[in-house]
């Protein structure tokens, strides 16, 4: 199947040496006034283009914080982060929004689809913010939905879809802007085993098609599919 990133010129952006993620000494401290919580205490992480990385670890180990930083939803307190060669650590809100839009595709545990919009409109959403003209938007969204096996469900609202189908819409949406990086947060967490393995196969297929994939998960079955596992404990990456 032809996935969007596979169609692209696969040459790495300049000065990245093919690195999608390059984190150096990343710290994140939540300052709640009286108490300071150190969520991340110095993360060094490099992910090459085309890697499939599973991030595992107990609750409270800093997995979600790391994911938020990787996805530019939040900024680190300390440290350097290059996303596809672009330094994002000191960016303002609008700058981060643009980087998320262009470079990152999110797949969430609870899907995070907009309930009032159809599957097609949900997939179109990132392209809308990315300024893609409406005809192109429509065409590409339709094609992506076909590729995830939902060609006959484009006009359905999320409430009219099963959990597995919703997550596939979310995957299609993540691919809409041809991102450098796909970030998935417990993508199978809310699914039964069958649809969970469906989504898993889909993600694996994406990776084989050339995608760079970082998945945060408790699911051992999912983690074992990944060639590389990063384990976290107490805000640090531990060696396995």
């Amino acid at each position: 199947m032809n996935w969007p990133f596979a169609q692209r010129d696969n040459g790495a952006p300049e000065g990245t040496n093919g690195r999608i993620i390059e984190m150096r000494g990343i710290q994140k401290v939540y300052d709640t006034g009286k108490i300071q919580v150190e969520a991340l205490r110095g993360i060094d992480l490099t992910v090459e283009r085309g890697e499939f990385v599973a991030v595992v670890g107990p609750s409270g180990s800093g997995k979600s914080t790391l994911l938020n930083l990787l996805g530019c939803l939040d900024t680190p307190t300390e440290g350097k982060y290059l996303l596809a060669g672009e330094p994002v650590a000191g960016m303002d809100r609008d700058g981060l929004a643009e980087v998320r839009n262009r470079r990152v595709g999110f797949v969430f545990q609870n899907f995070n689809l907009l309930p009032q919009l159809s599957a097609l409109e949900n997939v179109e959403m990132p392209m809308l913010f990315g300024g893609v003209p409406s005809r192109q938007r429509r065409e590409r969204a339709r094609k992506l939905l076909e590729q995830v096996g939902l060609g006959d469900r484009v006009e359905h609202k999320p409430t009219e879809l099963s959990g597995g189908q919703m997550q596939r819409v979310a995957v299609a949406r993540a691919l809409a802007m041809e991102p450098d990086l796909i970030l998935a947060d417990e993508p199978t967490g809310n699914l039964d085993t069958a649809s969970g393995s469906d989504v898993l196969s889909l993600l694996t297929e994406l990776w084989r098609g050339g995608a760079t994939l970082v998945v945060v998960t408790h699911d051992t079955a999912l983690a074992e599919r990944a060639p590389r596992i990063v384990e976290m404990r107490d805000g640090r990456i531990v060696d396995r």
Partner: protein
Amino acid sequence: MSLQAFFRQLGRDLVTQKLRTFLTVFGITWGTVAVSLLLAFGLGLQRQQTRSMAGLGDRIVIAWPSRTSKPWQGVDRGRRILMRGEDILFLERSVPGVAAISPEMSTELKARWGTKVRAVRVSGVWPSYGAMRNMIPQEGGRFIDALDQARRRRVVFVGNEIAGDLFGTQDAVGKVVQLGGSPFTVIGVLQPKEQDSAYSGRDHSKFVIPESTFRALTGRRYLDDFIYKAERPKLNASLTLRIRNTLARRMHFDPSDDQAIQVWDTTEMFQFFDTFMLAFNVFLGVMGLLTLVVGGIGVSNIMNVVVDERTREIGIKMALGAKGRTILLQFLAETLVITAAGGAAGLLLAFGICRGVSHLGLEKTIGNPVLSPGIAILTTVSLGLIGFIAGYFPARDAARLDPVVAMKV
């Protein structure tokens, strides 16, 4: 979000909370009606009052020669100032800035037509008097003209009420009435007009004849008063000063003696009234605006609730790359649509009420409310401003949400 999706979302928001939507739109509608109607009634009242003040004359000055109050050139005070038509002619020729001037003599005479006899107030004047005093003839008639004055014609211009009294429904023009024992031909009937002030009887019950004829008929030599106006109402005061100085020299009285010639400048009345009405309209406008502001506060509250309810949606959109500006515009636009809907309904309602009131026949007392373009624009601008402010703060809060936190709601 595309325009289509925007309106779908808006429709969904509005429909799911029908009562809330209704109350919000109603608040704005009510405020709009309040602002525009109060101003419309204010303007209607002002126009009506101005019209009826103009019944006396269009910003004219009325002057009465009377007695000196200061001694001058060896003559004690209390001397009577007596003026004739030629003094007015002299003023017209020698004082610059006189746009129109006319002497007036008046007395009460017996008018007879057929068997009907009435005591009528009769004024002898020049042709320029008609325009100055807003004495407009009904169709088929005319006011006194220069030839009437020059030839001392026995012609009479009659007030509309006395005309009805004497001639009933018959056409008065061309009829010959006996006035002070002489036959006079009716040349015109006054078009009915509002008049809220007067100095020698209402015009609707008066006879007006040429000044030359008046003198011949009554044998009087001195005029009772004269009226004049300058090119523009603003120049009336300075013209009055020049006329007083000229007359002081000609009639030998102290130029600083303001009793020798007594003056009523009706522009002062207009000026006072305009100032009064301006203050009154500002008061009305502020009252209406406050109502509108209360409506705006309602809208702002609703938008706060909407932002609260849609926090998760906002978080998701931000995660997908929506910038703060995009979110801000979305909520601001929603507020403006609500405000515009309420405002349009309000303006239509106010317009309808104005039309309705115009048919109630209250014109003579409070005037017909006028929803002028100015009022409509003022209302629209206020609405836009209030809608913007009402929407801005909730929208800004939405735009400042942290996507990580917002998505977890």
